[in-house]
């Protein structure tokens, strides 16, 4: 790419460290020295700047769009509307329901209406101000419960315009309704069954819970550059999570075959699910193809809050009944997640929120109904934890409430009802891998506690107190609390989705030493996959120098960098391709007489750059074997075991690939008079099956725990009448280092027999359990019910909101 600013390059590193060690990230030095080129840093000599005109209304009819004045602005090279979309006018991850550019109606505030390309961002902005759009403003549909339950509720999408999926029980604004029934709820009258179960229960706890709309809060805004190609196609450099699903959605909109839309991953500044949907991709390509010039689009921060999907806010009602000894008898749950104006990943989020809706507890009789609905609120989709986060806050809050009602320790109640290997979740799926939940809970409970406040060197040091250096307390009103949380998360894609990955591995000799090139389309979004791919290649092929090729669509799909799945899936693909290369190397060596008769492949390893026989030692070095320029290259796909759709009436089916679990214990100091919280400790026990990179793993667990802490205490996109009230990092608060406590992290390794190396995805589980643990600790300190996450100061001091 003829760019002045370096965009994407090979990452080369040389080390002995294979899996289990903690080698440096190959992109680490570039990132910490500020030299790494993120997608927003790309620059070309003759490029144009794209900008997006967005709807100011959450719901309105578009009467007319007049671009005449905008086109007159000097320096403007294109102003495009829905009329200029070359192909399919709508796209989407699961349902093709989202307009490339709005036509007929706008359904959320911030929906793209027109796009501009100009010689300078300021020119583009001025041109946008001159696009005249006449709207007829409509009443927005903003109450997700009404959208789910009220047959009279107006529709966000006109009847017949949404793809029909009977398996999702669609009706009105319901995108998906997934019921799950077990035990006595499967037969006869469910209400009578509930009454009979209530009569048998010694203790019943019930409440309504809410989880607010959380933002992924990545730091690198949506950005990329589209470059028109000689062949009529387009080359797109973009920060995304899944190159091939972008390609699948972009090409039809441009009316191009898939292979004419070539995508290369540009530097990604965080993702957390928010880049799973398209943002500026099609727009930049349209402008580039129209102007025949490279077009760069970078969202600003406020625009970014409107330009990507968020975590679904949830309204939930739960009821649990238990026997006097704590044994759970039944549970019911109603979970409504607000999908906003377009479907995005909502159906899959409902699949997770329902199947994992009651968590990792043995419950003989379960009735769960999860709904995903359309409204005129901002669209919601993938975010770390994906439907399991919302349910976990509710069921863990219920477990604490139940423990309180029974007079039991919260850990004892959880242990009493804990699942284990061989248990079946409420969908009937067996957990056929280790799940030492009871041990993990006890281990978390027994971790050393942080010192009491009076034992600190200076108990009045404001940095240790709620409010920090803002100086609101010297200890007045401060009460300590401890809380626990545990969550169960599906890892890899679920419900029949074959989210395979592909890897191309090449072994050759360059400059007298063996070098491995690993090429996949897997998105490095900060999680450290580039490190892990190199470690796997080193472990499997016994070389030190590894080149990680840029991720692009020149190789088969790697699936998404989401669902905690890339170590499993792309790790599995790299390992499988390495094995194919290894076998080819053995065959080559055998053909050239380096391997004695009678020595089978089972007796061989690739170690230290040599083929080594266990019995006879080193046989030949790779440098010698491949000295003639021989290149060994293999491409392999890796598929996880198949999964099933949940059935639409009883919600039964083995829908998940793998399960992950984390347990948290939070210790907080709460200023109960001011409603301010300082988290003192946030300790975790997590089973990851097999540790691939200890340092990166700890980073994942710390990051996930902190993101959950944010949801517990401060992170909420405030939406009123379809409008975001805090679209900035001034008012959307995420934890700073002073909000982030020391974390003791205990990692267990019980291998999953179904996965590569026995590993389990690790990124998401801590995000589930940390939120309820922190809120439980605040409850313990305040005695308040705290049914809304995040907990607001008003909730703690008792001011109604």
């Amino acid at each position, binding site marked *: 790419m003829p760019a002045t600013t370096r965009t994407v390059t090979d990452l080369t590193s040389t080390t002995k460290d294979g899996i289990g060690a903690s080698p440096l990230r190959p992109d680490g030095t570039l990132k910490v020295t500020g030299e790494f080129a993120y997608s927003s840093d790309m620059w070309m000599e003759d490029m144009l700047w794209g900008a997006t005109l967005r709807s100011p209304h959450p719901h309105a009819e578009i009467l007319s769009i007049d671009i005449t004045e905008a086109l007159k602005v000097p320096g403007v090279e294109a102003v495009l509307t829905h009329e200029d979309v070359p192909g399919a006018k709508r796209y989407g991850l699961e349902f093709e329901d989202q307009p490339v550019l709005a036509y007929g109606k706008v359904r959320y505030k911030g929906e793209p209406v027109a796009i501009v390309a100009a010689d300078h961002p300021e020119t583009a902005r001025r041109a946008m101000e001159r696009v005249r759009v006449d709207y007829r403003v409509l009443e927005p549909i903003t109450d997700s419960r009404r959208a789910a339950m009220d047959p009279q509720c107006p529709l966000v999408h006109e009847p017949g315009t949404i793809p029909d999926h009977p398996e999702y029980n669609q009706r009105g604004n319901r995108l998906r309704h997934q019921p799950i029934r077990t035990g006595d709820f499967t037969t006869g009258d469910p209400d009578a069954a509930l009454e009979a179960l209530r009569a048998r229960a010694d203790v019943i706890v019930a409440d309504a819970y809410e989880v607010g709309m959380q933002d992924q809060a990545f730091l690198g805004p949506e950005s990329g550059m589209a470059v028109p190609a000689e062949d009529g196609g387009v080359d797109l450099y973009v920060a995304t999570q899944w190159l091939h699903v972008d390609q699948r959605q972009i090409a039809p909109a441009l009316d191009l075959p898939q292979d004419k839309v070539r995508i290369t991953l540009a530097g990604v500044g965080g993702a957390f699910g928010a880049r799973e949907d398209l943002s500026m991709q099609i727009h930049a390509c349209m402008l580039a193809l129209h102007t025949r010039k490279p077009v760069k689009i970078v969202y600003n921060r406020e625009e970014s809050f409107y330009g990507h999907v968020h975590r679904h806010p949830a309204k939930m009602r739960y009821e649990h009944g238990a026997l006097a000894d704590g044994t759970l008898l039944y549970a019911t749950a109603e979970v409504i997640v607000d999908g906003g104006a377009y479907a995005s990943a909502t159906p899959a989020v409902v699949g997770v929120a329902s199947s994992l809706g009651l968590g990792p507890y043995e419950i003989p009789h379960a009735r769960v109904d999860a709904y995903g609905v359309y409204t005129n609120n901002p669209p919601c989709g993938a975010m770390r934890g994906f439907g399991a986060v919302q349910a976990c806050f509710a069921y863990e809050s219920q477990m604490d409430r139940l423990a309180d009602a029974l007079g039991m320790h919260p850990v004892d109640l959880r242990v009493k009802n804990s699942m284990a290997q061989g248990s079946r979740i409420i969908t009937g799926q067996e957990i056929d891998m280790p799940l030492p939940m009871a041990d993990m809970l006890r281990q978390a409970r027994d971790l050393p506690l942080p010192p009491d406040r009076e034992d600190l060197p200076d108990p009045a040091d404001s940095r240790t107190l709620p409010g920090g250096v803002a100086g609101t307390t010297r200890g007045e009103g401060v009460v300590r609390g401890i809380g626990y949380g545990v969550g169960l998360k599906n890892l890899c894609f679920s419900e029949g989705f074959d989210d395979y990955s592909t890897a191309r591995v090449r072994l050759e000799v360059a400059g007298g030493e063996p070098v491995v090139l690993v090429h996949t389309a897997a998105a490095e979004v900060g999680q450290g996959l580039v490190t892990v791919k190199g470690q796997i290649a080193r472990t499997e092929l016994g070389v030190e120098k590894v080149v990680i090729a840029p991720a692009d669509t020149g190789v088969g799909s790697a699936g998404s960098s989401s669902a905690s799945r890339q170590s499993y899936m792309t790790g599995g693909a790299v390992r499988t391709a390495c094995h194919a290369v290894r076998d080819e190397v053995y065959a080559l060596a055998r053909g050239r007489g380096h391997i004695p008769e009678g020595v089978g492949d089972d007796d061989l390893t690739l170690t230290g750059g040599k083929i080594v026989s266990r019995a006879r030692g080193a046989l030949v070095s790779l440098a010698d074997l491949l000295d003639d320029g021989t290149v060994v290259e293999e491409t392999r796909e890796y598929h996880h075991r198949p999964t099933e759709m949940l059935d639409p009436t009883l919600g039964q089916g083995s829908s998940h690939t793998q399960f992950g679990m984390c347990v948290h214990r939070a210790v907080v100091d709460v200023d109960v008079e001011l*409603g301010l919280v300082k988290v003192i400790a946030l300790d975790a026990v997590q089973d990851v099956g097999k540790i691939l990179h200890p340092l990166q793993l700890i980073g994942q667990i710390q990051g996930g725990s902190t993101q959950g802490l944010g949801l517990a205490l401060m992170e909420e996109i405030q939406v009123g009448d379809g409008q975001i009230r805090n679209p900035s990092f001034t008012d959307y608060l995420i934890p700073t280092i002073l909000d982030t406590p020391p974390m003791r992290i205990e990692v267990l390794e019980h291998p999953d027999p179904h996965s590569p190396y026995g590993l389990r995805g690790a990124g998401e589980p801590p995000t589930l359990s940390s939120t309820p643990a922190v809120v439980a600790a605040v409850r313990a300190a305040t005695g308040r019910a705290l049914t809304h996450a995040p907990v607001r*100061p008003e909730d703690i001091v008792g001011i109604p909101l």
Partner: protein
Amino acid sequence: MRFLSPSTLQEALEAKAEHPGAVPITGGTDVMVELNFDKHRPEVLLDLTRIPELTHWETTDDGHTRLGAAVPYTRVIAELPTLAPALAKASRTVASPQIRNRGTVGGNLGGASPAGDTHPPLLATDATIELASTRGRRRVKARDFYLSFRTTARQDDELITAILLPTPTGPQHFAKIGTRNAMVIAVTSFALALNGRDRTVGTGIGSAGPTPLRAEAAEDFLTHEIDWDAPGLLPETTVRRFGELVAAAARPIDDQRGSAAYRRHALSVMARRTLTWSITDYRKETAPCA
């Protein structure tokens, strides 16, 4: 947009007289944000960072600290903890270390956001703002400076050159509510200063009204409740009444940072606590030497 960078105050004042709409810039921590958000497109930016007079502080013969308008918060925190305790404490709560290295008290006054962290201490300690123009210099009490939302007594051709801080003769405290433990805009804030020499009390309220506010009824109440010669611990009813009067002086709204009811509640708590700390400090200061 023109960018003027005078090297003397006189040149700056002449530039401001010639371009009354010019926006002065020192740290840029407010101005650049507004420019980036396209909220303002001033014709002229007037860079004041090269003017030596604005970037140092000194003590004056009449018992004041004269703080140049462009002295960054970092220096206020490090150099004025004794001469301006409440202002130094408030400066410590501003944003992040990087921003404290750039941001200035003069900038806070120029922007005059009701959420600005330095306003409550300036009100509570009865500071004076020095304004200059080609017409000359004048002084305005902080208590007369804030006129309405983001509007101050500064005339268009004037620059804020200095803040005159009376030398403390009693304890000063500042407390600020944020929903995280650092880097946060005030949900509300409160400053309290006891002036032992004049036997007066000063208060300042931030982020709970269209302008920074004083709680004058609370000041009057407390002035008469304190035994200035032999201060004793105040009865709980007095402390509580002070908190109520401070809360009553606020004129908060509901917004994305917090509810009006919470702001009033938090002000009453901060008022009670800062009063208790101040009385404790004052008793130590006035206790006869053993």
